[in-house]
Each structure stands twice: as C-alpha cells, then as structure tokens.
C-alpha cells in the first residue's frame, strides 16, 4: 500500500492549539488524514481526543493553527460551512432529534446536503427523491424497519446506527466517528463494526475509540494523543509494539 504523500490529504491540521486559560487541550497538533484513510485516534481519558474532533468540525474555535480540508483552509469557517465542504461527524453521545422519526432524522441531513432544506413553501413530501435516498441509507445500515418510529423509542445500539446514517446522509468526503461503539451493549457492537467496514473506500475515516479490538480491526494507521500532544503515529503493528504507548496506557482499565 503506497503512502499517499503525493496526493493532498483529505484533512490536515497544522500546529493546531487550543487552551482554556491554563488548560491546554491541543498542543501544536500536526495531523494528516489521507484520502480513503482508515485512521484511528487513541489515547487515555482526558487526552483531548473529543476536543480535537470539536476543533476540526468547528464546534470549538482554535486558539491558533490551521485546519485544511482537501487543501483549502477552513479554520475560520463555521461548523455548517465545513459540512458543506464535505466534513461530517458523529457524537460520542447521540445527538439526534429524539422526538422525530428515524426516517425524518436522516431526511433532514439529506435535505441539507441537497441544498433544499430551506425551501419555504413546497411540501417536504413532494421531494420524494430525498426521502427515498434517506430510506436507502436506512436499508444500507439495516435499520429500515424502525423508519417511522420516534428515535427515543429505538434501542440505543440502533440509535448509534441512526447517528451514523445521519452523518452519511451528508455525503461527506471526511467522516469523524467519535467513539461509535460507546454505550452500546457488547452484543450489538458487532453490527456497528460491520457497518464501518462497509463504508465507501474513498471516504477518509477518522475513528476515536477506546476499544482496542475495534481499533486494530479497522485501522490502517493510528495516532496516539496524550494530554493534547501527539505522542506517536504509525501502522497498528508499530503502535502495538511501542513501549511508550504501553506505558501511557498502564493504569488504564484494559478493555477485554
């Protein structure tokens, strides 16, 4: 597998910093996500992984540094603007429209992606293609039977899949998954892993995870973050063998 250094990375951060007063959650992070990547971001609790995702997605404003999407600088753009440039994310704790149906949740995302979500007067039902596209996504992820049920009535593991479906509805070129298996009973996490494995090959994927089995199964490249700084980066075997990484995880409860 050739390293795609010649091609421009799908996502890049240069000297990205973020501090809250004395607390530095991101310290000169230089990060590159190649096109079609399967990249994992790991680190102990409080390392700043979710903050990194928030910085990249625009939910958090950087103190300094640059963020680039497909070579274009997006550091000063809002969340919504970055989404329009092809960036999508999921949340560690589901952020869904709990009172709305599963189908409606995904339709909202698909509608935004098509640019028709702001249509003032023609009924949403008339845009059948949008609804069908959303429905197809549900089928793809195996949750189509819950289509008309309100999200809050759906099992949590399946809600996590809805969360992914919503992100996929945006047709992203870069997808950030924040602990996709978090909170899911171990019996159901297999489905989520399968779904992630079936994602399009040209999608650049960054996964934050604590579950090492999941990481080693899915990732072709791993970055280790400790206290807001990148400790090391490389292919899974190199990371597994690195004594510094094991040291950093000593004292952390091992995932079985």
């Amino acid at each position, binding site marked *: 597998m050739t390293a795609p250094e010649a091609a421009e990375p799908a996502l890049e951060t240069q000297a990205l910093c973020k501090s809250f007063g004395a607390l530095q959650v991101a310290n000169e992070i230089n990060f590159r996500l190649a096109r079609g990547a399967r990249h994992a971001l790991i680190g102990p609790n409080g390392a700043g992984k979710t903050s990194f995702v928030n910085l990249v997605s625009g939910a958090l404003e950087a103190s300094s540094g640059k963020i680039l999407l497909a070579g274009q600088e997006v550091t000063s753009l809002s969340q919504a603007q970055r989404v329009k440039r092809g960036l999508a994310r999921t949340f560690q704790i589901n952020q869904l429209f709990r009172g709305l149906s599963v189908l409606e949740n995904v339709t909202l995302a698909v509608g935004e992606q098509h640019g028709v979500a702001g249509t003032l007067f023609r009924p949403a039902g008339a845009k059948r293609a949008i*609804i069908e596209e959303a429905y197809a996504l549900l089928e793809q992820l195996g949750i189509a039977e819950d289509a008309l049920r309100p999200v809050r009535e759906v099992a949590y593991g399946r809600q996590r899949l809805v969360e992914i479906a919503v992100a996929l509805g945006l047709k992203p070129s870069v997808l950030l998954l924040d602990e996709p298996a978090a909170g899911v009973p171990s019996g159901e996490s297999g489905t989520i892993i399968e779904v992630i494995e079936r994602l399009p090959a040209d999608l650049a994927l960054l996964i934050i995870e604590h579950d090492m089995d999941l990481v080693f199964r899915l990732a072709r490249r791993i970055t280790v973050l400790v206290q807001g700084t990148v400790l090391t980066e490389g292919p899974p075997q190199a990371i597994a063998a690195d004594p510094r990484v094991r040291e950093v995880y000593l004292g952390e409860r091992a995932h079985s």
Partner: protein
Amino acid sequence: MTPAQRGGAVDAFARRHRFRALEALPWLLAIAAYFAFPDYLALGAQIVAMVLFGLSADLVLGYAGIVTLGHAAFFGMGAYTAGYLAAHGVGSPLVGLVAASAMGAAIGALSGVIILRTQGLSILMLTLVVCVMLQEAANKMTSITGGADGLQGMQVGSVLGLFSFDIYGHTAYWYCLCVLAAGWLIARALVHAPFGRSLTGIRENVTRMHAIGSPVFLRLLTIYTISAAMAGAAGALIAETTGLVALNVLSVDLSGTILVMIILGGVGRLYGAFIGVPLYMIAQDRFSEIDPVYWYFWIGLLLVLVVVFARGGVLGLAEALIRRSTRRR
C-alpha cells in the same frame, strides 16, 4: 423489507402534508358561529384576529422553540401603523393591513438580527426589552401615538370600497376570517415544507442542526420575520375593527397572555391557537362580568396546573387519549 413495505413507509412519510377532513372543522365552526351568534360578531372578529396573533406566536414558540416575552411588539406596531394611516387619510383597510405587516416584518427582522445570535435567558430578556422599549416610546411620543390616551381620530374606510364596517360586526367578522385563512394557509405550508421541518430540528437539537450544515441563524431569522409580519397583520385587524389603538397593544401583559392562550390549546401543533384563543377569550368575557379579580386568579391557577399536569394543552390531551384508545384495540 419488501419493495411494497418500503414503498409504504416512504408513502406514509411523504403524505403527511395532505389535507385531512378534520382540518375543515375550525372553518365550519367559524361559519356556523356567524349564524348562531349574530349578537356577538364584534367579539368574534376580535377572537379571529387574536387567533392570527396566536398562530404567529406559535410559529416562533412551538416550531422554532424561541421563548419570547415580547411578541406583542410586532402586534402593537402593526396596530399603530394601521391606526396611524387611518387617522391620516389612508382609510383603506387593506392598505393598512399590508403596511402593518411590512412594519411588523421590519421590526422583526431588525430585532431578530440583534437578538437571535444569543440564547437562553438573553433571548428572553431581549425580546422583553424590545417590547417594553417600544411601549415606552409609544407612551412618550404622544404626537404620533396619542400616548396614554390612545390614537385619536381613526377613520377606517370600507374593504375594497364595497364592505363597510358597522357596529354589528358583519364586515369585521368576514374580513378577519379571510385574513386568518390566508395566514393559516401560509403557516401550514411553511410547517410542512422542508423549512418547517428544519425548524423542528432546530427546536429539538440545535447542536445536531449545526453539525448537518444547517444555516441555523438564517432559518430562525426567516421565521421570526414572517411571524412578526403575521403578528403585525393581526394588530391591524384589531385596530381596524375596533377603531381604537391604545398602549396595551404593546404591553408585556399581552405578550404573556398570547403565550397563555396557545399553551392552553397546545404549542407546536398548528391548531393550538384555534382552540386556546377562543377558549381563553370567551371565558374571560364571561368571567369579567362576574369578577375580574377572580379571573386573574383562576387563569393563573390553570396555567400552573397545565404546566405541571398537561403540558401539551388541549391538543396534547386529545393526542394522548387517541394514543391510549388505539393501543387498547
């Protein structure tokens, strides 16, 4: 899932905006009321105008989720605009109506741009402050508004040059009803359009809306402006059909009252205003003959009880009953 099942789910979803027979009920009742209560048409016209006001407030509160304590600002500015025109030679009610809507929209857009970037307590405070500010301005600019005495010398002409207002309220009733129908069609279309659905998304989870690329501020500003225009139109209706405009049209009291009315009917269900407003106004009309002091007490108590026990209002209770009866089958 078979193609037939998939088609069924998509169909059900796509058909939500179709007119249902039950939706004709409020209009049939309104028409019946014309014949059943010929002596109460003046009150009826006021109720209809307030339903329009309530509908506008529901768009902002029930759909966009903006808690506002100052919606009367737009209503009152609309009323004063229509009243001012009528007192200065522009007698045509329709011109007054359009001007009032435009005024409402302008104030809505201006205050929205300033207010909607904040959230929580700040929005609540700022909507309140805008309303109080406008009331204070109206109070002091006596040359334009008549101050505490109210606008004097309104001369309202006939609608389209054909139907003039009389003390029995015939013209007033149909005039208000037609304007309400127009407003309702607009509100209904908005709610069922992708725009309306995205508002529901903003209300349910604004974090998610940002994360799917939705221009949240722009959507909120749009609905705020449209709602303000509708409220301004309602203000014009009241001004034109009663021939009076006084400071209470800009009061926080009125802003609070319209909230109460739509809560009683049920917020965010499009028809809450149609139920809550007549209920409140008819009850108030009856009660104020008996004792206005008691009215304040009971409406306060009802409000507390509704919040604690029946947050969905009348429509919410109806929905719950229907759900319970279908589950038993």
